């Protein structure tokens, strides 16, 4: 897919691009009619390539594909979710480029964003699905409760029924956020609603999982842009995530990796190691087992990401991260509940309790020794 196109003197090696009026109904035509110049379109394509984690040499190919792309109908269904994914996508920036991505699709239903409500809105959804049957893109955020349909309904329709109905006519499904991809927080132990992910229900449609709690906005738009550009789903990993964004672990791309390699770790959030920006592994960082684009793409238009801000990665794009043993427990620590371990008989349990108490006190003493109290003067700086 990522055929490397070398540019000679700035022009692509293939045939010259056709010049003229863009075809009707295409993205090219829509942009030209909005007064978007070819130069503006080039900026759009360059940024889209960066968004899709494609090499810059692909920019001419993207331009050709986007010019001819038809505006796909998109139906967005929100189930058991906190709306964080929609907020991440729509509130983070008022980006001209990302708004163009949205202008490039026909968002025919999104019950959080749309002004319409009630029976009229649902009728409009059904009409859009019927008109674009087999061709619309279905985007889902939130998990689906199976224990009782009443836990989450829209217009009196259970999430399960609405998903099954909408999936029938979808060309592809994009599951946005860890709830839709792996069940998320509703799925966390004891999972009272019987929450499941989209791919546990739909088995006969291509599904792109875009996990994260929430996902990075540009990852969501990057996946949309890929579908718009190539008309196909991107290459996926073994649990359905686009490899372009989820192909490498946070650990492998983290700028603090040299500290890990040298064995330089922050022991507490305010010790000298923390202030020097050392590795956060001992403070619970799940970077080694988490696959996402945070370390390179970052958040808030490339401003920062949790580790850069001093907080360990919580692994929010991985299945069952809420039940992963604690955000502040190092990956090397056992996650089993010691009180349930058969090894500890009554007397043994008492002894173990003392031992653990001593160990914890020792750890606390060590923490106290390396703890540097922050003063008011520090905060004033």
């Amino acid at each position, binding site marked *: 897919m990522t055929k490397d196109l070398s540019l000679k003197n700035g022009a692509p090696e293939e045939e010259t691009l056709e010049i003229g009026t863009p075809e009707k109904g295409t993205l090219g035509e829509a942009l030209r009619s909005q007064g978007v110049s070819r130069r503006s379109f080039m900026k759009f394509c360059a940024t889209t390539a960066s968004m899709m984690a494609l090499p810059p040499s692909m920019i001419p190919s993207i331009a050709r594909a986007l010019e001819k792309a038809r505006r796909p109908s998109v139906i967005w269904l929100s189930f058991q979710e906190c709306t964080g994914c929609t907020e991440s996508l729509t509130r983070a920036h008022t980006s001209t480029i990302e708004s163009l991505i949205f202008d490039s699709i026909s968002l025919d239903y999104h019950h959080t964003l749309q002004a319409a409500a009630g029976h009229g809105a649902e009728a409009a959804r059904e009409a859009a699905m019927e008109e674009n049957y087999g061709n619309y893109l279905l985007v889902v955020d939130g998990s689906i409760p199976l224990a009782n349909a009443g836990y989450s309904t829209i217009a009196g329709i259970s999430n399960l029924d609405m998903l099954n109905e909408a999936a029938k006519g979808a060309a592809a499904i994009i599951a946005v956020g860890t709830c839709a991809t792996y069940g998320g927080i509703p799925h966390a132990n004891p999972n009272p609603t019987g929450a499941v992910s989209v791919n546990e229900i739909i088995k006969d449609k291509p599904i792109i999982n875009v996990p994260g709690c929430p996902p990075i906005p540009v990852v969501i738009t990057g996946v949309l842009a890929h579908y718009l550009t190539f008309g196909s789903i991107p290459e996926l990993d073994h649990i359905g995530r686009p490899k372009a964004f989820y192909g490498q672990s946070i650990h492998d791309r983290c*700028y603090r990796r040299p500290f890990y390699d040298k064995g330089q770790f922050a022991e507490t959030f305010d010790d000298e190691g923390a*202030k020097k920006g050392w590795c956060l592994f001992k403070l619970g960082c799940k970077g080694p087992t988490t696959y996402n684009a945070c370390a390179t793409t970052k958040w808030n238009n490339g401003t920062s990401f949790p580790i850069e801000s001093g907080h360990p990665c919580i692994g929010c794009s991985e299945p069952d991260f809420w039940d992963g043993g604690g955000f502040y427990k190092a990956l090397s620590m056992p996650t089993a509940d010691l009180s349930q371990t058969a090894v500890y008989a009554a007397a043994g349990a008492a002894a173990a309790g003392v031992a653990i108490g001593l160990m914890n006190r020792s750890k606390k003493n060590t923490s106290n020794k390396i703890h540097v109290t922050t003063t008011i003067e520090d905060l004033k700086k």
Partner: protein
Amino acid sequence: MNPAGTPQFNIHAGNELTCNVKPILHEIRHALQKLLDSDETSIIDLRSIPLAPGEEETIIETLGRGEVQARLDVLGPSDIYETQYTGVWLVTHYNDSDSIVSRFIEVTEIPDVLKSQREDVVHALDALVTELGTDKT
């Protein structure tokens, strides 16, 4: 000045610790050679590289500024300038909120986005003909 006893916060990892600055400068060096040898353009997407805090600034500061600067108004502003190393350009695209949406180092004679685009020229000719009220043939 660090008064004795007050903690120092070092949130900028030096390039000797994260080692990304020099490799990128070498990549630019190779790209310049390729431009001389075969007229081939190279583009480095700075958003695709895990740079530590301060590293991008170090790279940009090292590249410096040259003779050419341009400010574009295309779907939000874009800044393009040739660095002190002729043929090495820094292209920064902003959205309409002045946030950076993409940033590239282009090693080329002139970045494509600076050139007048043929399609826009066609439309410009049509517009001028309309303004003049004459047949373009």
